[in-house]
Structure formats: C-alpha cells, structure tokens
C-alpha cells in the first residue's frame, strides 16, 4: 500500500492537494467569499459539461447558458411550487436537461459546425424570451425567489467544530456545489478514458475512420450533447440555490459566451482545464473591474470604458493573449512548461552519466 502511494504519479498528488484545498479553505474565508467561490464552481461544472461536448466530441455550442436556465427553472419550479427539497431537485433538473440536450442533438446531427454554432447561439438568444412567456409556470419577468438553504445539523456541527463559527447558507451552498463538482469531475474522468469517451474523441478526430471502426457517429454525438446538457442543468440548478433567485435575465447570451471562453482559457479536452477555466472566467471580470479603475497610469477614458463594457473588454484582451501564447489553454501551458523543465533536468543528469537521452524518433 505504502509502496503504491509512493509510486503514484504526480498528477494524483495534485488531485489530492486540490481536493483538500477546496474542502478546507471555506473555513478560513468569509461567507461572502465562499458564495463567490460557489458561483465559480458552478461555472466550473457547466464548463466541464461544455468541455465534453466541444473539447472531447468536437461539436461547438454557443448556447449552453440555455441548458443552465432549464436546469435552474426546473429546480426553482419544483422547489417553489411543489415544495420539494431543493437538494432533491438538483439531480432531477440535471436528468431533465440531459434528456432535452440529447434530443437537441438530433437536429444538431444535420448541421455542419458553423450552422450548429448558429443554432445553439439562437437557442441562447431566445431563451430569456421563452422563459418570460409561460407566466403561470415561470412567473415571467419577475422570476422566482427561493428560500436560502438551511444547512443540515451534521454540517453545522462539523463546521462549528472546525471553525468555531455558525455555518451560513452560503457556506452550505459552497459545500453542496463542491460535492457535485467532485462527483461530476470523477464521472467525466471515467467517461473520457473508457470506451464511450474514446468513441467521442475518435469521431472528433475523424468521423470516417471512427465509423469504419464501428462507432455510431450519430449516437455518440447525441450522447455528448446529452451528457453535456446534464452538466449544465446541474450547474443551473445549483446557480438557483446559490443566488436565491432565478429570472430570465439571469441567463443572458453573455453567459453562454462566458462558458465557452472559460472552456477555451482552461484548455479543451482536458479534465483539469474546466477547473482553471471556470475560476478564471468567474473572477477575471470581477477582479479586472476593480483593478483597472484603481490604476492611475491607465487613462481615465480607457478605465471608464472598461468599467462600462464590463467583462467583455478584459475577456477579449485575455482571449487574444491566450490564443497567441497558450493555444492549449492554461492547462496546456502548465503541462508544456512542466515537460520542458523535466526534459532539461533529465538532460542535465544524462550529461553527467554521459548517456544520451533516447531519440524520440526511434521506435
């Protein structure tokens, strides 16, 4: 056992450290910050879903905010009208959204990449108006106000034992979100490295060859849409829990763009990518809107433009930088840096023993 732990590759240690970090640090930050991090993790979950679709199966979606809206409203309606326990509504919202996403995959099969992007974009555009129409169900433009979740006794006890303070509903929301994120990351990790995930990656790399190997192209494309929507639905449902309020304006077109930007910044087709991308996409506009006006060297016109335009300007600037310097996102940047460092260290060791490193071209 000890031997196996010692032999574990560094990435397993990174996972352990990350899990401990995310489990522990809400005990040392304020309740408000915990709420912010819960929102960041919600974005992370949605981006993980988008990553399965865009990164692993190679289909573009500019409308994942619509799936988040569906998940959020499913939970809100179940909890508000039917007095269901909110925690129970989360998986229901996920499954329903997943089913809708799976069916949305049917027309998507007939569309080439560009038209699929437009169709999903249209979905994101019409979503706020669609929500407003059935007033009896969604309460129209007024939205639905939700009760803040009350932490259960065991969580309160555990939290006060560690910190000595009373657990707030924001902190409870954080831990619920964290648990879902953990579960969904584990599931995604299992999916992409086994048969079905391989089939998705294969059809992304080459549909003709994948079909010749027996991969049902249409089936796996729809499956990717379904799983991806399931993630977005759960994220949307958790969003309702964390904000205590869902309205048509909670799901603007910009949300869908934010998700895609997060997926690209973090690194497509990687498991840690959405984590980095989600945190980045959440905090970047907040931080930059505070940072930019505070800088005296930036001309006031530019500073006020940035402030007025909101996240769009910083997103744009960061996206351009990422495209130039890190086309594989943050994760790609880190792994290639690590590889380079390791090669240099190994090269140094080989120089001492006089042994040449193996030529990568020889097989």
């Amino acid at each position: 056992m000890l031997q196996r732990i010692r032999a574990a590759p560094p990435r397993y240690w990174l996972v352990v450290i990350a899990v401990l970090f995310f489990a522990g640090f809400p005990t040392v930050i304020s309740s408000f910050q915990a709420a912010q991090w819960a929102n960041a993790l919600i974005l992370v979950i949605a981006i993980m879903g988008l990553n399965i679709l865009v990164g692993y199966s190679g289909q573009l979606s500019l409308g994942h905010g619509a799936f988040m809206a569906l998940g959020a409203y499913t939970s809100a309606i179940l909890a508000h009208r039917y007095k269901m326990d909110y925690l129970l509504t989360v998986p229901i919202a996920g499954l329903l959204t997943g089913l809708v996403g799976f069916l949305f995959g049917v027309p998507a099969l007939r569309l080439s990449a560009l038209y699929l992007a437009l169709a999903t974009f249209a979905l994101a555009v019409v979503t706020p108006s669609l929500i407003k129409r059935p007033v009896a169900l969604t309460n129209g433009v007024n939205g639905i106000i939700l009760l803040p979740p009350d932490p259960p006794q065991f969580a309160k006890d555990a939290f006060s034992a560690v910190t000595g303070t009373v657990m707030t509903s924001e902190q409870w929301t954080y831990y619920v979100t964290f648990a879902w994120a953990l579960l969904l990351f584990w599931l995604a990790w299992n999916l992409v490295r086994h048969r079905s995930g391989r089939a998705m990656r294969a059809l992304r790399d080459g549909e003709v060859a994948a079909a010749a190997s027996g991969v049902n192209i249409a089936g796996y494309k729809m499956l990717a849409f379904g799983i991806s929507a399931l993630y977005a639905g759960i994220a949307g449902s958790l969003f309702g829990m964390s904000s205590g309020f869902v309205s048509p304006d909670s799901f603007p077109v910009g949300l869908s763009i934010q998700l895609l930007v997060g997926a690209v910044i973090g690194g497509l087709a990687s498991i840690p990518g959405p984590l980095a991308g989600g945190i980045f996409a959440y905090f970047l506009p907040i931080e930059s809107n505070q940072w930019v006006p505070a800088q005296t060297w930036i001309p006031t016109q530019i500073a006020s433009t940035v402030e007025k335009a909101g996240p769009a300007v910083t997103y744009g600037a960061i996206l351009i930088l990422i495209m130039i310097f890190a086309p594989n996102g943050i994760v790609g940047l880190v792994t290639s840096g690590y590889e380079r460092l390791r090669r240099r260290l190994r090269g140094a060791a080989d120089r001492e023993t006089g042994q040449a490193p193996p030529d990568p071209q020889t097989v």
Partner: protein
Amino acid sequence: MALLEIRELSVRFGGVVALDRVSFSVDAGEVVALIGPNGAGKTTLFNVITRVYKPSSGSVLIDGEPVSRVSPHHVVRHGLARTFQNLALFRSMSVLENVLVGDHIRTRSGWLESTIPMPGAMRAESAARKRAMEMIDFVGLGAAATRPIAALPFGTQKRVELARALVSKPRILLLDEPAGGISHEEVDAMAQLLRRIHDQLDVTMLLVEHHMAFVMGISDRVVVLDFGKKIAEGKPGEVQRNPAVIEAYLGAA
C-alpha cells in the same frame, strides 16, 4: 460462396460515372489486388464497400449478406475492416487508444457502465486492453504503445492502422495502398507483415496498390479498373501481359 461479392456496382457523382457496373468477388483466404491508373475508381470502390458513399445501383455482399444499405458503422460488424490511403488515425490519441477504438465493436459496455465504473465494464476494458496490446505486439510496435500518434514516423503509423483494423477480428481486410509513401525496406517489411496477417490471423484481403512488384509478390488474383470499368481480371502474370491493361497504363501505341 464468395466472402466478398461486388455485383454490378455503379456510382455516379452528378454527371461523372466513378464506377460503371463493376462486378467481381473475393473468396475466403484469397489476397486480391485492385489496380488501375489514377482516377480509375479504386478508392471510390473501397468507400462504397465501407458505406462512406452510397452506390447508385448494384450491391455489395459480405458472406452472402447485402451490406450496401446498412449504416457505415455496421459494416465492420459484418467482419470487414479497412485502412486508409492517407492514414486516418485519431491524431490526439496514443497508439494503444487508437487500437482500442478499433476494438469498439468487441465490447458491449455502454457509457453509463464505464462512467459509474461498474466491475463488468472495467473487466471488459482490461480485456480490450489486453487484446489491443497483443495486436500492437503482432505488428511489432509493442515498445511504442503509449506514444502519441503524432510523434511517430509515417511507416509506423501505417502499422498502427493495421493493428486498429485487425483488432476488430475482421474476416476480410481492405487495404488502401499499404505500400504507399514508405521506404524501400519498409515495403518489404510490409509485405512480410501482410503475409503473416493472412497466414496466422486467417484474414482475406483486398488491396489497392500502385507498387507493382509488391502487388505481383503478394496477390493471388488481380482486378484491373480503368475509368470506373473493370477491364481485366486474372492471375498476376496473366494480367501483366494483358494488352488492355498495358494500354490503360501506357496509352495506345
């Protein structure tokens, strides 16, 4: 009965007739070469057999069963696998993962079983890995199994494609220019490998090839296409002396 039978197969792209009522068959255990000048319709024929294209008329039968109307991903389930002219490997994956995709039809486990790692699906996965490794060893790439595809030389990638096709346990293998684009020594090694596949794995082969020495050395029978029509068929020696074939390749005297 023939293992693969092409019956009166025609394909038209708009006004262009790519294949014009081509008929021939491949018996179990045979190695048949399909030759012809560029644009003769050889790759088109492969693409019709594997259902990338729809035939305009005629039919394709594998072991007596018509496959010209099945979905593209069902063809391999009838025991027919293929390789591609300009390589169609999954570029982002390792050698092992590529071959595992070839194993797709031999495992049944659905997406949910491997996502919530069920013991059955995990057993199926490790069995698939074992089969894939055996096939990678068979084509002589055991040492490169975990390497990413993009890092491998062209000739090695061709053998990865072979392993990916073979791991599905095909009865018949369609090879699109197995000796194309590789060095002189590699051509000999490829011929030896194909002979081993034929003898040891009991695989029937239909191959498209321009390398004539390779074709003559390996095939039992040769089918010649020109402008979408079959112009000759027979033993390698006979075909070489056939005036119609000489004319197709060199032009009329």
